[in-house]
C-alpha cells in the first residue's frame, strides 16, 4: 500500500513538474476523445430512434411504399378486413390522421384521433390542462412542450388556422413529441373527409399478435396496397438507415479511440528520447526496467484518464447546449443526443486499453536496452 502511494506520489510529481508536456498530451487526447463522445452519442440516439419498443397490442395498416407516413391514404373500406376479426382477435379498429406540420416554425407530428380513443387506444395521459374538446384546441405531448417551449394557453398556427393549447399529455413511444387533435377537427382542417393515414387495430389481449398481423397482411384486400406493422415498429422500417448509422459510427468510434494509442505512442516516444537522462539515472541507481515501464504507464494512464474525464465533461456540456438551442428531430420526433453511462464505461475501458498499448509498443524493448544505450542517445 505504501509502495503504491509512493509510486503515485512520484508520478504525480513528475506530471506536475513536466506541466507543459502533460497539458499538451491531455489536450491532444481531449480532441480525439471528444470526437468519440460526439459520435457515440449520435450513434446511440440513432439506435434508440430505430429501436423503439414495439407495441404488440396494436397493429397499423398503412399504404405500401410511402417514405413519409403522412403520405399514406387509408379509407373506411380498408378497415373491413380488420373489423371482420372483431371480437375474437380485434378489440377495435380506429382511424388516425398523421401529418408532419410546421407549427410556429417547429417541425412536428400532428396526430388526430377521436377524443375517446386518445386514452383508451393511444394510452395518452393528461399531465396538465384539459383534453382538446373545442374545435380550436389541441393537446401537446411533453416532448413537444420541451422542444418548442410551449405552454397551456399558447396559440399555435397550424395549416392556416390558429389553435390554443388546452393540455399537455404524456404518451409512450414515438408519440412522445406529437400534437394531438380531435379527428373531426383535423378532417375539416385538411379537407379530406374519410381519408386517414393509419387504421389503428387494437388487438384483444392474449391473442397471437404475429398470427393476426400475418393474417391481415395476407388478406387479398390489403396485401397489394397496404403494409401491416406493429405500432411503433413502423419506424424501424422507415429509419433502418438511421439505426444502421450505429454500425458505421461504431467503426468511427474505434478509430477515434485508436487515435489515443497513436497519441500516447508519440508522447512516449518523445519521452524516451527527451528524457533519456532521467531514465539513465533511474536505471543507474537500480530501478528495474519493468518499474520504469510501470511508472511511464501509470503516468500515461493518469493523463489519459484526465483527458477522458475532461472530454466527457466538455462534450456533455456542448451536447446539452446543442440539445437546447438546436435539438435534432427525425420524422418530427425529438432525438435527444446524450452520453449514456454504458458508453462512458465502454469508452473508458477502450481508452485505457489503447493508452496502455500506446505505452507498450515504444517501451517494449526497454527491458533489453543497456543503460549505455541511453547515455549514447
Amino acid at each position, binding site marked *: 500500500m505504501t509502495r503504491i502511494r509512493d509510486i503515485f506520489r512520484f508520478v504525480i510529481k513528475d506530471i506536475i*513538474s513536466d506541466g507543459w508536456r502533460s497539458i499538451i498530451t491531455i489536450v491532444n487526447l481531449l480532441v480525439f476523445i471528444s470526437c468519440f463522445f460526439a459520435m457515440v452519442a449520435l450513434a446511440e440516439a440513432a439506435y434508440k430512434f430505430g429501436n423503439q419498443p414495439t407495441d404488440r397490442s396494436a397493429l397499423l395498416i398503412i399504404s405500401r411504399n410511402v417514405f413519409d407516413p403522412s403520405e399514406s391514404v387509408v379509407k373506411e373500406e380498408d378497415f373491413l378486413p380488420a373489423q371482420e376479426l372483431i371480437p375474437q382477435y380485434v378489440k377495435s379498429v380506429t382511424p388516425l390522421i398523421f401529418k408532419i406540420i410546421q407549427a410556429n416554425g417547429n417541425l412536428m407530428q400532428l396526430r388526430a384521433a377521436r377524443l375517446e380513443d386518445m386514452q383508451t387506444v393511444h394510452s395518452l395521459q393528461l399531465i396538465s390542462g384539459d383534453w382538446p374538446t373545442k374545435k380550436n384546441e389541441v393537446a401537446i405531448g411533453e416532448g413537444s412542450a420541451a422542444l418548442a417551449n410551449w405552454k397551456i394557453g399558447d396559440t399555435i398556427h397550424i395549416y392556416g388556422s390558429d389553435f390554443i393549447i388546452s393540455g399537455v399529455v404524456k404518451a409512450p413511444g414515438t408519440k412522445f413529441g406529437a400534437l394531438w387533435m380531435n379527428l373531426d377537427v383535423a378532417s375539416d382542417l385538411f379537407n379530406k373527409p374519410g381519408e386517414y393515414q393509419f387504421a389503428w387495430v387494437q388487438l384483444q389481449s392474449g391473442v397471437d399478435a404475429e398470427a393476426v398481423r400475418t393474417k391481415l397482411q395476407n388478406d387479398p384486400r390489403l396485401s397489394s396496397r397496404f403494409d401491416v406493422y406493429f405500432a411503433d415498429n413502423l419506424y424501424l422500417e422507415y429509419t433502418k438507415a438511421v439505426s444502421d448509422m450505429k454500425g458505421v459510427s461504431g467503426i468511427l468510434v474505434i478509430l477515434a479511440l485508436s487515435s489515443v494509442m497513436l497519441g500516447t505512442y508519440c508522447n512516449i516516444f518523445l519521452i524516451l528520447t527527451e528524457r533519456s537522462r532521467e531514465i539513465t539515472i533511474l536505471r543507474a*541507481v*537500480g530501478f528495474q526496467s519493468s518499474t520504469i515501464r510501470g511508472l511511464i504507464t501509470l503516468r500515461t494512464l493518469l493523463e489519459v484518464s484526465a483527458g477522458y474525464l475532461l472530454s466527457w465533461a466538455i462534450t456533455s456540456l456542448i451536447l446539452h447546449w446543442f440539445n437546447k438551442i438546436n435539438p435534432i428531430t427525425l420524422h418530427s420526433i425529438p432525438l435527444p443526443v446524450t452520453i449514456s453511462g454504458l458508453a462512458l464505461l465502454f469508452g473508458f475501458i477502450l481508452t485505457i486499453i489503447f493508452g496502455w498499448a500506446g505505452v507498450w509498443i515504444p517501451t517494449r524493448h526497454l527491458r533489453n536496452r543497456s543503460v*549505455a544505450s541511453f547515455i549514447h542517445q
Partner: protein
Amino acid sequence: MISIHQLHKSYHRGTETVHALRGIDLEIEKGEFIVILGPSGGGKSTLLNLIGGIDHPTSGTVSINGFSLEKASEESLTIFRRDHVGFVFQFYNLLSALNAVENVTLPLMAKGTSFNQAKIIAINILTKVGLKDRLNHLPSELSGGEQQRVAIARSIIAEPELILADEPTGDLDSYNAQEITALMHDLNQQMGLTIIVATHNLSLAEKADRVFELRDGKIQSTANDQD
C-alpha cells in the same frame, strides 16, 4: 574484490570503429581508493561504465566479488548496481523534479524501501554531508558543490561496497572541488568504501591509494601511495 582481465571495448562512431579500451588488466582490493587519470577520450569513463555494469565489454572479463558482469543480463546488472554500486557523475545527474531528500531516497526506493523510511535515512546522510539546511531544495536551487554533495549522498544511501565517480569535481570551482575531494576521502576512510574515481584533478590523486594513468585505452603507468 574487482578483477579485470584483458578488457576490450570498441564501438562504432559512424563508419569509424573506436577502440576505447585495449586489453585492461586490473585487480582492486576492498577499501582501496583508486584514481584513474588521463586525457579526455582516453577510456576512463568507459572503464567505469564497464565496472559499474552500465555497459557490456566487447571482450574480456569483469568480476566483482565473484559476479561476472560481462555475461549478465540487463536485469541482473540492474540488481547488481542497486545492491553493490553507487555512482557519482560530473554533472550530478539529479532529477530536476525532485528535491534533495527525494533524489537521495531513490536507490533505497529501488530496493523497495518505503519513501518515509528512506526519507529518514536520506535526511541523516544529507546532514552528514553538510546539507541540513537544503533538504527540500530542488536541484535548480542548489549550487554545483551542493548538487554534487546530494549526488554523493545518493550514491552511499543504499550502503554499496563500491563507489564509481566520473569526474566528480570536473564542473566545480577549486574550493568546492577541494570539499568534494575531502568528502570522498572521508567516505573511504570512515566507511571503508572502495572508491574508483576518474578525474583530471590531481588533488584527488594525492589522496588515492593507487593512481593509474589511462591513455589510448591502455594503462600507461601506475603509482601507489608509497610513491
